[in-house]
């Protein structure tokens, strides 16, 4: 598997933490969504790695163009606003579609079973009250 550039990785981390922001409970990255994705890129999601890299580069470029700073360095409110624009097609169909895909993957990492590499120590399940007994 190829790997992301440092900038792409920082962008991914920032996006994941806007999809599932930290609050009283861990955000997406702290809970292991990145780890989930790394594992998936070596398996089911391997064909999408290039699309991920392109998407991350594209939204970082938009951030630099509109706000003069890398996506990961923007205030979270600005990151949210930019992602809302992307979601609503303001920057083209392809980015909107891929963002929706990234959201579903982030949710799988966060709310799926820890055996898939995310949801570290079942933090997401504890947060919502899903308890595994038996």
């Amino acid at each position, binding site marked *: 598997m190829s790997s992301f550039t440092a900038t792409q990785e920082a962008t991914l981390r920032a996006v994941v933490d*806007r999809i599932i922001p930290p609050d009283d409970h861990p955000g997406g990255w702290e809970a292991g969504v990145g780890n989930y994705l790394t594992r998936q890129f070596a398996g089911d999601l391997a064909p999408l790695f290039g699309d991920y890299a392109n998407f991350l580069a594209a939204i970082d470029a938009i951030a630099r163009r509109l706000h003069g700073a890398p996506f990961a360095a923007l205030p979270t409110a600005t990151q949210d606003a930019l992602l809302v624009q992307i979601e609503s097609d303001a920057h083209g169909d392809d980015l909107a579609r891929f963002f929706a895909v990234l*959201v579903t993957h982030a949710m799988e990492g966060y709310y799926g079973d820890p055996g898939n590499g995310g949801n570290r120590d079942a933090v997401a399940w504890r947060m919502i009250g899903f308890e595994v007994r*038996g």
Partner: protein
Amino acid sequence: MSAARYDAIVVGAGAGGGVTAAILAEAGKRVLLLERGQDLTFTAIGRDHLRNQRLSQYGNNAGPDLDGHPRVAVDADGRERLVRPHEGGYQNNAAIVGGGTRVYGAQAWRFLPDDFRMATVYGVPTGSSLADWPLDYAELASHYERAEWELGVAGDGAASADLLPRERDYPMPPLPPTAQSRVLRRGADALGWATTPVPLLINSEPRDGRAACIRCQHCVGFACPVEAKNGTHNTLIPRALATGNCDLVTGATAARVATDRVGRAIGVDYFDRDETPQEVRAEVVILAAGAVETARLLLNSATTREPTGLGNGGDQVGRHLQGHAYTGVNARFAEPIYDGLGPGVSIATLRFNHGNDGIIGGGMLADEFILLPIIFQKRYLPPNLPRWGAVNKAFMREAYRYVTDVKGPTQEIPHPDGRVTLDPTVRDRWGLPVARFSGATHPETVRTATFLQDRAREWLDAAGAIQTWSTPPRPRLAAGQHQAGTCRMGDDPRTSVVDRWCRVHGHDNLFIADGSPHVTNGGVNPVLTILALAYRTAEGILRAW
């Protein structure tokens, strides 16, 4: 080398195949039970929330393998799509010893008396192939009872005795009610609707050398950690093997039913786990591969005598494919309705299965299994909730224990163009033509489903829901785990594939023991009917032997 010989070959070790193998083996017949899947352990089936029979996002936990088993789905506009076993439109059911019964939700409903006479009760809607069964509820009642007692059902027979008359109660009491079912009971009581505990093929007390249900959270879609869930894999198939008369061969994929020069079935040709072709011969052949694969097998067994497939002289094999249109309503309550006690489904009403003014048929409505958190995120969010961000996360946190749904299987109105055919070009790993699906359900199914969705909302409102949401039913092809109808039962070979004993017309030693013969598929889960019919068919085979 001469082919191995048996008295009977059963293709498919699921619900119907397991029953048939056991009854024939216990009667002293030498039986070969072929299963394309494996006999997986609980650990091998696992608890992967992204790869299971309830959510097959990236794979299956109970087969079939993702590669080498494609199918083709044709949509309403005629567009073809190649689909793999975990993808939408594949109409998958488990490929494993026990079949669907290994990982099912285990609802153990009998069809209602009017389910066997739909055409008489409702007439035949234009464009449909709605028809009566050639047998009635009374004829199947003792076989239902046998299935309930030999596999083991927990339920309360008195609660539905007015609609489902029975000689004998279930062998076990129902599981105790959940918080969710108490809230829904309150709503039903306010509406004056009768309810019943959902009968389950699950031990509510230790039985048959196996434990009682431990109320875990991974029931539907997964294997049971204590074998309290009763399938053929832990009841009938072990009984068959214990006789010493039954050989179970896993990893065995049937390629064709072999016939002699006059068309009589003489055995089965299959590929073994090493992909080596094998030929076995027997006096009787029973197909129990599910409504999709059984139809495909008959079509793939064409001969010069029957060039369009065995039993297909009336061009009926593969037609009338049906399952269930599932419709329901999601609801949020002010109080927590989640207590974590599995399996979750607990309370139902049969009030709307029939007798709905101006509606054809109907269906059962019940509460929900425990929802995996990722399924909740993917399928249970209200329409206007942001799909990401702080508000989404807060909803997950604040609503998971307060949201459920009421839903159920709408009785489908069959029609001849909902069907399985052989794809003209796509082949499986052994070079055999694969199943190709076409046709959406009849418009009357959608009308019935819409009616039931309104009743579900009425129930949830009466129970105190503070918010409800749903998506309107749409016409689609629903086969999947409830697949049925592709080898319809009837007296006339021009309009059916098997006779009232599930014997393929024109083939006195070829039988079917899965959902394929179902003329209609009821408005409840079909497995108990598949089991009951298999008992009746096996008994009939023995009587005529």
